[in-house]
């Protein structure tokens, strides 16, 4: 990463960076409280914040978000290297999206068939795996490590689940200060992976929506160029409004993210959420009507 990017090349990116810096301090504090029962909840908050910062403030949302997820995970769990793969359903391969660490650039080129290695096993079994062994050659456990001649001492790999489907895996290499990743690390990274998957799906959906909107605009053949341009400008203005500090859109987006997170927890949670939100909506409608009604009589 260039220094320019580190320092924040523009305002939005700079803001995202400063958010990450604040979170890094917060995460360092959290790290000291690993055993604390509130840890998981606070970690979730930190990730939701970073996801929100990523989707709203930064124009390079998707890849930046993935990068932030691996950076945060490696930082929290104290790993020397890390990577994130997403599944390409068509080719049945794992595609490297992010790689951190010494050999990151070499690793980033790879696509890995699902039939091999720790990442492949985690993707097909849906189970997290921790592997370590200083004596034996752990390269055999990791195709990528083998190909770039990097022998990690320890590996921790968790699935990224969204709606019961595995979308990819998050892998950390080489635990700092210990020969292996602990069961607590496995728990923390699994929880983190669940939240990361939600954030990735949100970002992906947003990207898909933008692409869909573009295609719809392109398909409007019967419309004049002027009208098309007007539509495109309106769409661009809408997107900009979301990206900028428009508090209404921002709050709505944050609310949507909270709802999406609840929905991903299951049917019971979804129903509870619907009941509560409908209740609130009915109450506000009723209140508005009664205020309007009073207005009629006055």
């Amino acid at each position, binding site marked *: 990463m260039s220094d320019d990017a580190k320092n924040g090349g523009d305002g939005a990116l700079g803001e995202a960076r400063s958010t990450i810096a604040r979170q890094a301090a917060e995460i360092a504090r959290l790290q000291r409280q690993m055993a604390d029962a509130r840890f998981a909840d606070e970690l979730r908050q930190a990730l939701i914040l970073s996801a929100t910062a990523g989707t709203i403030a930064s124009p390079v949302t998707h890849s930046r978000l993935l990068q932030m997820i691996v950076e945060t995970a490696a930082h929290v769990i104290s790993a020397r290297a890390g990577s994130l793969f997403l599944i390409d*359903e068509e080719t*049945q391969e794992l595609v490297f999206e992010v790689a951190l660490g010494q050999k990151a650039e070499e690793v980033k080129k790879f696509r890995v*068939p699902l039939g091999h290695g720790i990442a*492949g096993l985690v993707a097909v079994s849906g*189970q*997290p795996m*921790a592997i*370590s062994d200083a004596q034996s050659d752990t390269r055999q*456990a990791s195709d990528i490590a083998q190909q770039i001649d990097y022998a990690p001492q320890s590996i921790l790999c968790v699935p990224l689940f969204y709606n019961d489907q595995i979308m990819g895996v998050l892998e950390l290499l080489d635990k700092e200060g210990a020969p292996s990743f602990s069961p607590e690390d*496995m728990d923390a990274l699994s929880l983190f992976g669940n939240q990361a998957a939600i954030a990735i799906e949100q970002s992906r959906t947003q990207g898909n929506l933008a692409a869909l909107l573009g295609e719809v605009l392109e398909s409007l053949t019967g419309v004049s160029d002027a009208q098309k341009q007007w539509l495109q400008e309106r769409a661009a203005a809408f997107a900009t409004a979301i990206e900028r500090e428009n508090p209404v859109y921002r709050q709505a987006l944050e609310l949507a993210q909270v709802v999406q997170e609840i929905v991903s927890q299951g049917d019971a949670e979804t129903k509870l959420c619907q009941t509560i939100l409908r209740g609130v909506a009915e109450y506000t409608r009723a209140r508005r009507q009664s205020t309007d009604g009073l207005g009629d009589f006055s």
Partner: protein
Amino acid sequence: MQRRPAYSSPFAPEALQSVSSIPHMDDITPEWAWGGSTGQGVKVAVIDSGIDASHPAVGGVSGYVDITDGPDGLVYDTEPHADSYGHGTACAGIIRAVAPDCELYSVKVLGPNLSGRGNVFAAGLRWTIDHGMQACNLSLGTTKRDFFAMLHELADLAYFRNVMLVTAANNMPVPSFPSVYASVIAVASHHEKDPYLFYYNPEPPVEFGAPGIDVRVAWKDNGYVTSTGNSYAAPHITGIVAKILGKHPGLTLFQMKVVLRALAANVAHSL
């Protein structure tokens, strides 16, 4: 002939079968349970990623089936196969170490294909029930609720046929099937290294704890790795179950749970 309600004929005086007893719980000792047994003659299925029979820790596989989801339905290939990941070999090696003479059967359901995996998994379980296996290691499961009923039915069928399903609990705090059913022996991990040391948990669904943290296990390419997961705790219990069945072949699953509970390291025995 006297009429009886449905399902009641086994309890007619002329039909009533005499069954053997097991000792009082406090009299059950490791010596009684598996002393002298090597698991010989006990068929143990490992439903997993395959088993590498050439690995020195495995020492031979008695039978194979590789189940895949083909365009015309499920395909059952009974030719010998390998283990592309190492996970099934790891489980087989642990079972072999505890029950050196048991007959291992590799039921391969975990391959590179993501599609149809739930059905392939269920087919593996059904194959195990239909092919006379007495114990079965399941260090995998599914969290998909769509398969809850199908797997529940198969787990019950296994229980009725006396096929002892030993399942690893999920490594994430989400229920996975069939590990949460009462008809299986569900296992999670403790830190100790003694393969014969296990604990009983009075608050199911996970009833037993066995070594599963930083366990040195067989892996692919004749290698070994140190790994952590409930996947490795389950085969310790599977090995012990095979050993007990080698000595007491007629035990039912509920009797097996009684024996295991009696031998758990955290049971306070009355003197």
